[in-house]
């Protein structure tokens, strides 16, 4: 349901465009920066798509993103993060013990759509901390 907190034991995936990855394809903090006027960072809730099948989860994310008309670039990656690890890391390491909220924000054509809230202030510092918690990445195009 919209607004529900995503369980700390679950995982999220973030589409990381190729221009925000380093030359070797590794995630940088730029992958987690907000656009101007963006309220939250868009991710997808993997366990909503499939329980313990990463391939099926990622296929669901790719389908949802493509279905929304988003361009999955040839060098883009999907970064997978543990919700609990990310939130713990930010709470522990940020200057203000930031408690990020990860909330379900379903859209009609993207039911697993989710938001990471409370990135401001110091959103760039928080973005660099989030990047430290990326567990694994996969090609965005599959």
């Amino acid at each position, binding site marked *: 349901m919209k607004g529900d907190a995503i369980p700390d034991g679950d995982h999220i995936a973030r*589409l990381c*465009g*190729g*221009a*925000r*990855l*380093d*030359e070797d394809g590794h995630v*940088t*903090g*730029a992958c987690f*920066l*907000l*656009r*101007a006027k963006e309220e939250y960072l868009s991710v997808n809730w993997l366990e909503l798509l499939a329980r313990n099948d990463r391939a099926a989860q990622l296929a669901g994310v790719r389908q949802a993103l493509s279905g929304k008309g*988003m*361009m999955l*670039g*040839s*060098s*883009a990656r999907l970064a997978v993060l543990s919700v609990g690890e990310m939130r713990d890391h930010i709470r522990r*390491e*940020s*200057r203000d013990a930031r408690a990020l909220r990860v909330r379900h924000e379903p859209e009609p054509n993207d039911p697993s759509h989710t938001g990471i809230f409370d990135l401001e202030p*110091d959103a*760039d*510092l928080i973005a*660099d*901390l989030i990047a*430290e918690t990326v567990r694994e990445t996969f090609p965005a195009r599959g």
Partner: protein
Amino acid sequence: MSAGETVATSPDATIISRLIPLDYDYYRRNVSTHSHEASMVPCMSYRGSGDSLGHPQPGSALWGDFRQSDGPSTAPVEAETIKEISAAVAGIASIWCRESKTSDYLRQSLSPPTTATNRPEESLSGLVESIRRDPRLRFRERLGTRLARLIEISREEQPEQAPPALASVRGLIAFLAANQGLKYPTVVLTPDGNVRVEWRQGRDRHFAIEFLNDIDVRFVVFASDPKRPYKVARVAGQASLDSVMTLVAPYRVRDWSAEQDEKRPGE
């Protein structure tokens, strides 16, 4: 440019919005002897063709005016100052063409009208080519190649990825030219197209700079606390690209971002 064109025609709102503050010190030293402009700065804009960097070219029509130095409003200029303004614009225009002292955002807005899709990339292509030839940049070829690749990716991923912002690229160039001892950084784009560079050697050696334009930057530092090295200090802020290295000096950022002294003490 005639004196009449310069000020007496009362530039319309569009032109006024394009006025660019110029180098007031240069103006004071070389042109102005009038006291009534003490709180005003000379401004200039142009109509006509510009080169890939947004500089006016021969044949461009130049416009001069004065602006209050402490506010955005323009002020009427008396007839006797027209000649003086013309001289100011002519003198400063030559400086402006050589130096980058004005707001790149405004300069970009002065570029001649082209189609929305090709204007940024045409300008960027020219800028990237100039980077490859810039003797001040130690990694000019690699940087040029990387920026060309980022342009290519932004083309492929639009509209999710904005192309590199011209002002931001200029900021990067100015910063690297002024800090030639730095290692080649990771160069990426923010979603909105600003260039962000990063030097990283682990969780306690991280330094990132986002170039907001050709003057301002945002920076992030993760470093060993200067007083308690077992703790990690984390700092973020905004500064001018001229002062950011001074501001982060207490965190010994150069220890890992500069070519020399790459190792930790004792290693």
